[in-house]
């Protein structure tokens, strides 16, 4: 029995082993928020390289924006009609923005649940955790939307450009007080986090100094937000003195510039920071923890992080080549890492909804009911400790950075029962809005997951392979088959008969006979601790 995490000695050489259902599901579980049966089948047929290729290369057709779905009998948005988008309406009104923040989260859930077969949403979420903005602080719906669109459109582009865009993004300027950072009253907030959390990081022993934080803050003085929610550079607020950095940055001096040229100092600052190889290593460690496993020892640092970082630098901070290298590596597919990741709440909730292909009302044509139901999912996430786009602070959720526990921090005596209650609830009652119900259709699920659901052995095997990534021994599965599908009967054909009877005479009693047994089985499997792993 393992008493500590282990690391694989396999490196970044391409994986040459068999492309099995398990390997395929492993890749999808890490790059999507849960995989549907059809997703696994499609990628299984493609093979590894083509699968990674499809996951990483996707058109930039962004989802249609969030809508005003929040008008009620007692509240009407004065500026935006119901059913139309609010993202272009700049408003400082507290009530309006409170509705829009909430609207954004519901919309985000709809986007995650409806994601296409690519890494975009999983990666967008990675960056939203990385930059760690809290929508509560940004406050304005439009800025929140724009901030996350920057992350979404750049998610698999160039990291340096992404940092540049985020640095003068109004949402970030507001979140880390960049817009208050002036020559007379410097605010070091962004200058600090830019280094500590967004680029060189602290975990690799980066030796930037407090003076570097101050110097960076001075470089960044002058940015503010105009009435149209655009970032503008106000040279009258810019500190035009020369800024000299520590030996960590090769004692670089950024010469103070006047007028509009002051804004160019921001680019110089980023160029200087990105000269440091700590940036690539810091980001590669974080990507590794997000996509593979949190445990990094000297072996992984040497054989995975360093070569990944080198590739990152060689490719001028393009994100895609790094991910391609990782997802095609023999390290990624080592049995040690299959199913070892404790799901985040988002993985758990969205993954569940996708696994069972829960059908929500259309988020555009039937937006009111759809957003209402997605809000139930947001509330579930909040209960489990992950209020989307509202991490506890700028560092993001501790599960993504806090040594030594990392992902284990998601699970405690409060959150684990909530995860189980969620899956139970979606099996038993679901949620209903205006007669529209989101609930697990057990019979449809059985048909989707298994080619021959009338055979209880095939059905149990298919369900376990699909829902779990851990190895389950045959006697345990057989025990569940007897107790739950056969409810104590000793012959498999009683399940077969019941299934066939329902399919030929689908009345309520025949339905309940099959449905009750499937419900009990699915609830049981999802209450196994194994279901918390992916």
């Amino acid at each position, binding site marked *: 029995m393992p008493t500590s995490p282990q690391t694989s000695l396999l490196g970044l050489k391409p994986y040459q082993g068999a492309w099995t259902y398990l390997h395929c599901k492993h890749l999808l579980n890490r790059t999507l928020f849960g995989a549907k049966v059809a997703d696994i089948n499609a990628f299984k047929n493609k093979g590894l390289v083509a699968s990674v290729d499809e996951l990483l290369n996707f058109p930039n057709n962004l989802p249609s924006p969030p809508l005003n779905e929040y008008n009620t009998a007692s509240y009407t948005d004065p500026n935006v009609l119901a059913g139309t988008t609010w993202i272009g309406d700049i408003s400082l009104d507290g009530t309006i923005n409170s509705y829009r923040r909430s609207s954004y989260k519901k919309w985000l859930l709809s986007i995650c649940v409806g994601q296409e077969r690519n890494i975009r949403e999983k990666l967008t979420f990675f960056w939203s955790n990385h930059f760690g903005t809290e929508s509560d602080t940004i406050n304005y719906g439009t800025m929140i939307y724009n901030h996350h669109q920057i992350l979404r459109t750049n998610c698999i582009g160039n990291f340096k450009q992404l940092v540049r865009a985020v640095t003068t993004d109004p949402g970030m300027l507001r979140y880390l007080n960049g817009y208050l950072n002036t020559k007379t009253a410097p605010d070091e907030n962004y200058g600090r986090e830019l280094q500590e959390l967004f680029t060189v990081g602290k975990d690799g022993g980066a030796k930037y100094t407090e003076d570097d934080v101050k110097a960076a803050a001075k470089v960044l003085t002058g940015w503010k937000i105009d009435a149209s929610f655009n970032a503008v550079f106000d040279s009258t607020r810019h500190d035009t003195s020369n800024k000299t950095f520590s030996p960590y940055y090769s004692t670089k001096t950024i010469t103070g510039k006047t007028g509009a040229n002051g804004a160019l100092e921001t680019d110089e600052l980023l160029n200087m920071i990105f000269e440091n190889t700590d940036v690539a290593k810091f980001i590669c460690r974080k990507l590794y923890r997000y996509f593979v496993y949190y445990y990094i020892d000297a072996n992984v640092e040497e054989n995975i992080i360093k070569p990944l970082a080198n590739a990152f630098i060689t490719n001028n901070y393009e994100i895609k080549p790094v991910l391609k290298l990782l997802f095609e590596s023999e390290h990624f597919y080592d049995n040690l890492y299959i199913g070892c990741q404790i799901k985040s709440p988002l993985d758990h909730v969205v993954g569940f909804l996708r696994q069972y292909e829960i059908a929500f009302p259309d988020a555009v044509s039937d937006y009111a009911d759809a957003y209402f139901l997605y809000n139930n999912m947001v509330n579930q996430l909040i209960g489990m400790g992950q209020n989307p786009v509202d991490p506890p602070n700028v560092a993001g959720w501790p599960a993504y950075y806090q040594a030594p526990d990392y992902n284990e921090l998601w699970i405690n005596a409060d959150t684990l029962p909530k995860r189980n209650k969620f899956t139970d609830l979606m099996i038993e009652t679901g949620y209903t809005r205006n007669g529209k119900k989101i609930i697990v259709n057990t019979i449809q699920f059985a048909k989707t997951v298994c080619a021959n659901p009338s055979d209880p052995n095939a059905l149990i095997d298919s369900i376990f392979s699909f829902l779990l990534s851990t190895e389950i021994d045959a006697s345990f599965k057989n025990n569940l088959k007897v*107790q739950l599908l056969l409810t104590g009967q000793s012959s498999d054909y009683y399940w077969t008969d019941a299934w066939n009877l329902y399919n030929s005479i689908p009345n309520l009693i025949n339905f309940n006979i099959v449905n009750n047994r499937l419900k009990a089985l699915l609830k049981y499997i999802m209450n196994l601790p194994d279901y918390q792993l992916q």
Partner: protein
Amino acid sequence: MERRNFIKNSLALLAPTMIGGNPIHILQDHPMLDTALLATSGNDNVLVIIQLSGGNDGLNTVIPMSEYGNYYNARTNIAIPEKKVLKLTENDATGLHPSMTAMQNLFSEGKLNIVQSVGYPQPSFSHFRATDIWMSGSDSNEYLNTGWAGRLLNNENPGYPDGYPTADKPDPLAIQIGSLATLTCQGPVVNMALSISDPSSFYNLIDGTNASVANTNAGYELSFLRSIAKQTNLYTARIKAASDSVKQQVTYPNNSLASQLKIVARLIKGGLQTKVYMVNYGGFDTHAGQVVATDTTTGAHANLLKVLSDSIAAFQSDMAGLEIEDRVIGMTYSEFGRRIKSNASGGTDHGSAAPLFLFGKNVRGGVFGNNPTIPATATFNDNVPYQYDFRTIYSTILQNWFCVTETAKTEILTKQYPLLPLINASVCGINDKNSTFAKEALVYNYPNPFNSATKIEFKTKGGHTLLQLLDGSGTIIKLLVEATYNFAGMNSYTLYGSGLVPGVYYIRLQNEDKIFVKPIIKM
């Protein structure tokens, strides 16, 4: 006694929503809400339910000696030889399978009641559907999505599981051992039973060890998750403490049923306030090879019955040794019995009514009901018709063992059912507390089933004698005789069929301390 008003107004108005994180179903339509209910049970009595999965062959379990010739003719290839049948004290008309010596002894001690031909109208021959009917207590053509014991426990604990365990109710309300949560304890919101599904995991719990995991990072994380899962089971510590506190038990036979019952005994003695325990024993679906052809007293069914008999006897003996037999009774049931006529494979196919066992010190010993009538030339479709609706057993347990009020009992069972004299009257201080269970038949009728009329003969020992006609729901629909006789003897009454809709009725005789209930069928 704990009294909790069922908060109809606040709960019933809620659409499906969450209260304290728990799903609440729509309750408006549930019959439980028809009347305000009070928590009903004040005693610490325990019921142990033994489910015999597969459909036990009742006719080879409890053998109708008064019908032996027809019985033998109907199943020559599997019939138990007459002289091998175990005799029951003062009950020559009925005997037990030869492998059930332990239960024969229990019968002699007055701790076993054999209820004849338990079933329900329009029986289902499907394992799944019949099991659901038994567990939910529904009619054959009705669907209930709650269990009968679940409704009992919900009646007493309407808020469960929010806030549970409480200071008053620190223990699981019900425990299912050896299988997963079943419909029996399904309440309107959640299952009221804690399942200890895997006996080995139970022993791991008791011993404080962990199940093994793979030597991978997934295995490492799984160990972590399991440790948290264990913490979240709020009942773990109580169960472990209860189990640990019992140091000495009788020797149980080595089989899965006995192992389950042994755990139950520990938990009861260890002080858990759990009211209902459920255990499961399977393999009764004996379509073929039920017996060894050369010796029909041996074979698969004989082995099953031996396990059943030995396990129950060991459990009962443990109850006595642990000094808790006053407050524990057990009940066996199977989803159906089997056909009267055996098949050519040396087995029997799915049937309908079958005997049911109740055991315990406070069970009234004896055979309740008449032997089933076996046709002289049974055909493959012949079945044992039911004499006692299984819900009359539930009704009796609820009211005469758990001392639930009649109103609450009717709500729990969703209809009215009569009481049968199966449990010592002193337990709940019922009205006819002086009555004793009549071992001999005190009521006969002919013809039965009947159409235009049936002649009822009843035996009185003299004194106050009451003869009532009850409908299938247990409602008294007619007082046939109320008289005080000066002498013992047989009397008769002719019941006319006009005005009676076809179905099962009961003739109930109450003569001083003696009660006898006989089912009759109007065609």
